C-alpha cells in the first residue's frame, strides 16, 4: 500500500495510510528504507480486520494505535495536518546495506551458531560454505560466478542473486555439484511464497536430468528418501531465507507458516510410468521430452486420498469431491497421482491429462457462499465482480446456496504422475504451476 500513499503524497495530497499491526514493523522499517523511501505517517490498527463485526471496527477506530498509543483518529488528523519534520522533508542521498563476500574466520561450531543467529538457515545443521566447497559447486555449471540469476525485488532492496550466491546456498543445503544446473533453474523463482495466508511451493522436475542426478520419482518420492530431491528443495528454502531476506515478523508474515517450506515438496515426475497418451508436465508446457525442466508451483492445500481406490467409486469422483474443499484461487489444482491411479483414470476414458482437467473443471461444484466465504477469494475477486467482470459479477448476484463451478480454467488444473506403485494413492492440491524453467540453460 505504501506505493499508493507515496503516489498521492507526490501528487500533493497529504495522506494517512492505515495498516494492521501484523505488518506495522515492516512498513516503518524495511519497506520505508528499501521500497518507498518515504517516511509515510502510518496509523496502526489491531487485527483482525476481515471477518469481524462492525462493533469491533468501531472499537478499533475509537481506540488507540497499538504502537504509538495515540488515539487513532487524532493521529490520523495529525498525519494530515501537522507540519513536516526535518526528516520528513529530507531528500538525503541513499546507500546500500552491504554484505561482505566472506565472513570472518571462526571455528566450525561458532560459524554454525553464527548462521543461526543471523537467521540465514532453516535451523537444521548446514554444510559450511567454504571457498573450496563453493568452488567445487561452481564446477557444476558453465556459468560464471558473477553472473546474475535474478534481482530479488521482494521485500525491497533489489538484491542481486548471482551464480556464486546460489552456489553458497547449494553447499549449505548439502547438494552435489551435478545438481547445480537444476538448482540454478529453481533459483530463478526465489524466494518462496510469502503471505500471511501461509502459502508454500512445490518443485517438480522433468526430463533426462532426473536420471542424471538420480532423483526419486518412485517409492517415497515425496518423502525424505533421496538426496537430490531433499537438497534441491532445501536449497530453495535457504536461498529464500538468505538472498530472499525473509525473516519472520519483519519481512515475512505467514501466520501459521507452512511445513512444506522445509523442502518445498520437491520431486521428479515418474515419466516412465505415464499411461499411453499422457505427456510429462514439461511437455504440456511446450518443452520436448529431451529437455530437462523444473516447474515451481505455488499453493496452500495438500489433501491425501488416504486410502486405496475402491471399485464402487472411480478415482475421478473422489478427486472431484475433495476438490470441492479447495479455494479455487486462480482456478488452480494440481493432482499428484501414483502410476496405478493414472492407469485406472486412463481406463476410465481419460486418455490424456487434458481430458481429466476438462472433466474436473466442469464437474467440481461448490456453493457460491462457500466460494466467497474464503477471504483470499474475496480479496482477489470481489472488486473484479463489482466492476462487472465475469464470472465474478454473476457469482456475486447468486443466492448463497447456488452451485458454481469455480475451476473455470481447465488449463490451470494439472496432473503429475509420481510414486512407486505400492498403492493406489493420490494427493489433490491447490498448487498453481508456473511455466517450466529450462535446466539445460543453466548447465
Amino acid at each position, binding site marked *: 500500500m505504501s506505493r499508493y500513499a507515496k503516489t498521492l503524497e507526490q501528487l500533493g495530497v497529504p495522506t494517512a495510510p492505515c495498516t494492521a499491526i501484523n505488518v506495522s514493523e515492516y512498513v516503518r522499517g524495511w519497506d520505508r528504507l528499501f521500497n518507498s523511501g518515504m517516511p509515510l505517517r502510518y496509523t496502526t490498527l489491531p487485527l483482525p480486520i476481515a471477518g469481524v463485526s462492525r462493533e469491533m471496527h468501531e472499537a478499533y477506530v475509537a481506540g488507540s494505535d497499538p504502537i504509538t498509543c495515540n488515539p487513532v483518529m487524532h493521529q*490520523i488528523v495529525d498525519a494530515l495536518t501537522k507540519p513536516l519534520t526535518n526528516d520528513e522533508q529530507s531528500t538525503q542521498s541513499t546507500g546500500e546495506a552491504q554484505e561482505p563476500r566472506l565472513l570472518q574466520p571462526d571455528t566450525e561450531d561458532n560459524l554454525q551458531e553464527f548462521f543461526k543467529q543471523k537467521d540465514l538457515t532453516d535451523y537444521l545443521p548446514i554444510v559450511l560454505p567454504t571457498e573450496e566447497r563453493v568452488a567445487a559447486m561452481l564446477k557444476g555449471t558453465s556459468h560464471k560466478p558473477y553472473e546474475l540469476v535474478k534481482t530479488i525485488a521482494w521485500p525491497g532492496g533489489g538484491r542481486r542473486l548471482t551464480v556464486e550466491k546460489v552456489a553458497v546456498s547449494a553447499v549449505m543445503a548439502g547438494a552435489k555439484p551435478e545438481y547445480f544446473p537444476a538448482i540454478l533453474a529453481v533459483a530463478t523463482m526465489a524466494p518462496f511464497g510469502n503471505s500471511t495466508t501461509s502459502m508454500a511451493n512445490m518443485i517438480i522436475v522433468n526430463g533426462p536430468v532426473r536420471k542424471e542426478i538420480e532423483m526419486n520419482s518412485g517409492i517415497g518420492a515425496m518423502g525424505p528418501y533421496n538426496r537430490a530431491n531433499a537438497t534441491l528443495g532445501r536449497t530453495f528454502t535457504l536461498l529464500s531465507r538468505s538472498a530472499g531476506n525473509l525473516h519472520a515478523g519483519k519481512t515475512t508474515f505467514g501466520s501459521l507458516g507452512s511445513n512444506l517450506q522445509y523442502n518445498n515438496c520437491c520431486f521428479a515426475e515418474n515419466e516412465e510410468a505415464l499411461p499411453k497418451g499422457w505427456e510429462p508436465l514439461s511437455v504440456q508446457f511446450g518443452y520436448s521430452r529431451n529437455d530437462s525442466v523444473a516447474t515451481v508451483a505455488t499453493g496452500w492445500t495438500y489433501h491425501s486420498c488416504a486410502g486405496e481406490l475402491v471399485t464402487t467409486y472411480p478415482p475421478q469422483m473422489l478427486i472431484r469431491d475433495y476438490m470441492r474443499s479447495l479455494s479455487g484461487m486462480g482456478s488452480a489444482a494440481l493432482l499428484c497421482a501414483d502410476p496405478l491411479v493414472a492407469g485406472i483414470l486412463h481406463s476410465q476414458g481419460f486418455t490424456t491429462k487434458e481430458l481429466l482437467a476438462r472433466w474436473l473443471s466442469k464437474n467440481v461444484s461448490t456453493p457460491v457462499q462457500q466460494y466467497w466465504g474464503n477471504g483470499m477469494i474475496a480479496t482477489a475477486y470481489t472488486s473484479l465482480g463489482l466492476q462487472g467482470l465475469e464470472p465474478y459479477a454473476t457469482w456475486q448476484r447468486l443466492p448463497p446456496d447456488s452451485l458454481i463451478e469455480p475451476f473455470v480454467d481447465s488449463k490451470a488444473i494439472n496432473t503429475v504422475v509420481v510414486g512407486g506403485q505400492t498403492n493406489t494413492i493420490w494427493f489433490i492440491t491447490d498448487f498453481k504451476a508456473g511455466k517450466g524453467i529450462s535446466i539445460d540453460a543453466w548447465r
Partner: protein
Amino acid sequence: MTMWVAGTAGVVYLAKRRVQMSILETQQTGPGSSGKITVLNPACSSTMAERAPLTPRTFSDLNDKTIFLVDIGWGGPKAGYDVLDVMKKWLAQNIPSARTVLVAKKGSFGQDDPELWKRIRDEGHACIIGVSC
C-alpha cells in the same frame, strides 16, 4: 559484519541490526587463527530506495476540506471498507464541516488505480487509505 553505506542515519531498524552484527564480530578473532575456517556469506547486499519527502501540510485542520477515504480491497468488501466507513462517521461527528468521499480502489489490492489518484488530487485536499494486512 554488515557494513552500512547509508545516508539515513538514525534509523532504528538498521541500528539494531548493526549492533547485533557488532556483538558477533567481537566474539570472533582475525583470519588465519588456528582451527578457524573462512566461509562465504549467503546474504546479498540491498540497495536502499531513493529518499522522497512528504508533501508539505498547508492546512492546520480539516475544516471545510474534502477528505477521500480509499479502501484498497484487502480482506474483501467488508473489511477495510467498513473500517473507513466508521472513520467517515467519526469525521462527520467531530469535524462536521469536512466533506468525506468513501471509495473502493479499482481492481485487486495489488492493482494500481492512477485515475483515482488523479481524481483525489483534483477534487480532494487529503486522503486516508487502508487497510493493509
